[in-house]
């Protein structure tokens, strides 16, 4: 499973979107698609578990979790920093 697939899976499970995650573009706004602030918290925690990473405080903001792409790039940055 690619990182994008994993993120899609997490959003499907925790994002409580009104739209179908499988058809969502990587740059689509997740909040516009119905993700609430509280759902975004669950997405954040599940992404951490899935990749065994911890988002630093400066990334714990709405911008980081605004799209599949923004989440993937934050994850990629953290995985590269840890490598």
């Amino acid at each position, binding site marked *: 499973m690619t990182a994008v697939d994993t993120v899609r899976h997490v959003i499907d499970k925790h994002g409580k979107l009104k739209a179908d995650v499988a058809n969502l573009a990587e740059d689509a706004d997740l909040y516009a698609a119905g993700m609430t*602030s*509280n759902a*975004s*918290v669950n997405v*954040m*925690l599940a992404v951490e578990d899935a990749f065994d990473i911890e*988002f630093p*405080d400066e990334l*714990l*903001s*709405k911008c980081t*979790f605004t799209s599949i792409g923004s989440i993937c790039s934050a994850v990629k940055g953290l995985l590269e920093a840890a490598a």
Partner: protein
Amino acid sequence: MTDVLNDRTTALDDARFAFREELLSSGQLIGTSVPGIYGRSGSFEQVIAGLDRVLGETFSSLGATVLRFPPVYPRADFERTDYIASFPDLSGVVSSFERGDREHRELLAAREEGEPWDGWLDPTDVVLTPAICHPLYATLEGRLPEGGAVYDLSGFGFRHEPSIDPLRMQSFRMREFVFVGTPDAAQLYRDTWLDTSVALLASLGLAVDAVPANDPFFGRAGKMLVSAQLRENLKVEITVPLYADLHEGTAIASANCQRDHLTAAFDIQTADGETAHGACVAFGMERTVLALLRTHGMDTESWPVAVRAILGL
């Protein structure tokens, strides 16, 4: 449990402790063994009553429906909000004894031995009300009338946060004016009545300021919620500087756009069937009186004539 009264590390802690001592020695507040739990004097209550009356008059043009709820509400309603996710550390669930004679004897035996006995208690179906609008929202499920609805609430709230700061009580009264209706009307309500509230509190001689604020959401998840709340300017606090340059100001009231936060949880809809939005202006009653005592002195008889007149003292 930390000893908040003796673990003072900053000049601000010392200033808050000194103010607390002044309130206790003047008799305005009566201390207990738990920080944040106080008795109130007759003089203190006179100011509370005056403030209550002035708030009622100031907001009278709203034609709000007056409702009063007790300081506890159903745990089932509490479960429909995400309070335990956002503020687990502030929550209070009422426990009681629901077992039999045998377990009662075990409890008494443990107590006799000086051991903890609260393990024999179980959570009941009520929680301490954290914010007095929560019981209201729980009753509003369904469609609102055209133009929305406005409510006038008053009562005790509870937050588990023992503190040296006398303004941070664990059990305190709020007076709250709540609007539920369309998103645009809710935003307009918040902005309009924020300005009115600032003017009212300024007329009492308080050096008030209105500043963007956030709720004290718990933990790392809370950091994300704070960032969203601040960016969207959902919460504005009316603050008063009480400790000169040691602190920028303490909140005595707030004006909030709750958006669909509670209305979605309780399935509250506008007349058109859309999810309603909520907005409120809430006053911390004890906090406002304490700000007045700090500003005008411990003896309410010597407060400025104009302030005494407004409060009917």
